[in-house]
């Protein structure tokens, strides 16, 4: 680490390649996330966005490359370690635990040590502290009225917010959001985008994978574009969207 750097990167992805049986689904991906930044991550269908996201969080093992979280090389760590070192993922296909209320869904993720040590889990009974945290987070994402409801009782828009609240309960340094706007109505998507815009803060950066380009353009100042698994552009949103190769690949504009 160079001491001169004033704002160290929260996440540094260096030349990550993920191979599925000879095919490079992600090929030399490079991106960096700064503190308090909202980074948009776009690319056409099949560009390997979710694959890269899964490689970053540790659900997939890259065949080469490095992933640095807050100065620490986590390339060889497993999923549970990476999450506990400060990463969280809100998945594209929402997976609420259906037998628990929203409050308990979120409180579980706030369990800290009790999720790592069975002994600690066994000697602790009270969920009060975690439920207080969960209540706060559910309020923050706009679900204050639904905390005692079960996931089956709620529409997709609410469950997408639940997914975000649950990821926030991990108090992540790096928050990965995989298509949180997908499947939402225009109004819902706009509200969700407003919510996402407020998520980056001191000590927390957010990567947003999204197809909804109008919202991404509105809320992200920095963009990373991937096409066919390869990095295509990385930089300020307006500059990136001006680039001809981005327009050709993503927006389908011809020369």
């Amino acid at each position, binding site marked *: 680490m160079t001491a001169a750097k004033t704002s160290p990167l929260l996440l540094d992805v260096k030349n990550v390649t993920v191979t599925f049986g000879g095919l490079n689904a992600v090929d030399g991906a490079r991106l960096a996330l700064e503190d308090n930044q909202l980074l948009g991550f776009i690319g056409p269908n099949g560009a390997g966005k979710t694959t890269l996201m899964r490689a970053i*969080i540790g*659900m997939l093992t890259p065949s080469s490359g490095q992933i640095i979280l807050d100065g620490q090389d986590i390339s060889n760590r497993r*999923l*549970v370690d990476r*999450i*506990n070192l400060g990463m*969280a*993922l809100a*998945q594209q296909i929402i*997976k609420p*635990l*259906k*037998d*628990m209320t929203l409050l*308990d869904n979120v409180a*579980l*993720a706030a*369990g800290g040590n*009790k*999720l*790592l*040590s*069975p002994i*600690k*889990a*066994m*000697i*602790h*009974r009270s*969920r009060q502290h975690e439920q207080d945290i969960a209540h706060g987070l559910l309020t923050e994402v706009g679900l204050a009225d639904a905390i005692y409801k*079960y996931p*089956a*009782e709620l529409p997709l828009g609410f469950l997408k917010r639940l997914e975000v609240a*649950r990821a926030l309960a*991990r108090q992540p340094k790096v928050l990965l959001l995989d298509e949180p706007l997908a499947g939402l109505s225009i109004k819902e998507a706009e509200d969700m985008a407003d919510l996402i815009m407020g998520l980056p803060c001191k000590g927390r950066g957010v990567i947003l994978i999204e197809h909804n380009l109008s919202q991404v353009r509105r809320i992200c100042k920095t963009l990373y574009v991937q096409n066919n698994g390869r990095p295509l552009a990385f930089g300020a949103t307006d500059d990136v969207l001006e680039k001809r190769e981005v327009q050709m690949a993503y927006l389908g504009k011809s020369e």
Partner: protein
Amino acid sequence: MAYEMIVLTNMLIAILFAQSLNLITGFCGQVSLGHAAFLGIGAYTSAMLTKAGWPLAATFIPAMVIAGMIGMIVGAASLRVRHDFLAITTMGVSFLFTGIIRKQDMLGGEMGIAGIPAAYGGRVGLLLMTLCLTILFIIIMIYVKRSWMGYVFESIAEDEDTAGVLGIDVRRFKLFAFVLGTAGAGLAGALYAHQVRFIGPDSFGFVESVTVLSMVIVGGIGSIWGVTIAAALLSVMPQFFQVIDDYKLLVYGMLLFFAMRFMPDGLGGLAKRFRQNRNPDSSSERSQA
């Protein structure tokens, strides 16, 4: 009186044994088709020790520790796979256990171990001891269910991948459930050995593993009371109806099938639905979509 006491002791041992599997399969969602092997490990450990002059009560800890330790080894190897694969792997454990026991002259080989000493206090003593231990184990189960461990187990049982994304060390918790459950089976085995006072490899085979799994499934995965009732009923039925005893694997296999097909939540789920129907307020609240 003696006969009733035997039936009652058997019933309590079956409840303890079924609850130990309920911890693994019910609470934590890991199907095991080889649980009888751990009953056997406890039974053999305890029988060898009491034959060497130990009092029965002193053999409980060794029986649990050895069953739990072997459970840890088996769990570490088999919990990497899931669902059907886990069922097949644990089924292998059941055959491996009887296969190994048959070849051990020290453990009586095919002939098994006979002349296991009676418990202190005779039949009454054993019944009381079994009653206390079974109640104690159920209390521990209730405690576990309400603790953070039960909370974490519930999430793993429902969706391991999601539990992992939430930061839960899924592998460690699954292994812990396996160790606790197999240790419980070891305790049940120690009691069982001194109830029947003769054990052989066939007492802990595949049929016994299927029987205990059907107790857990019929009772309702994860429901402490449902499993207690199912274990009590299913353990005494073969003693009253000879047919059931003769066609054990067929009867329990069918029971398992019908429970999974028509009553996936078991008796526990049925009771829950009944309560909700009686109390329309809470049910309408739940079903609002």
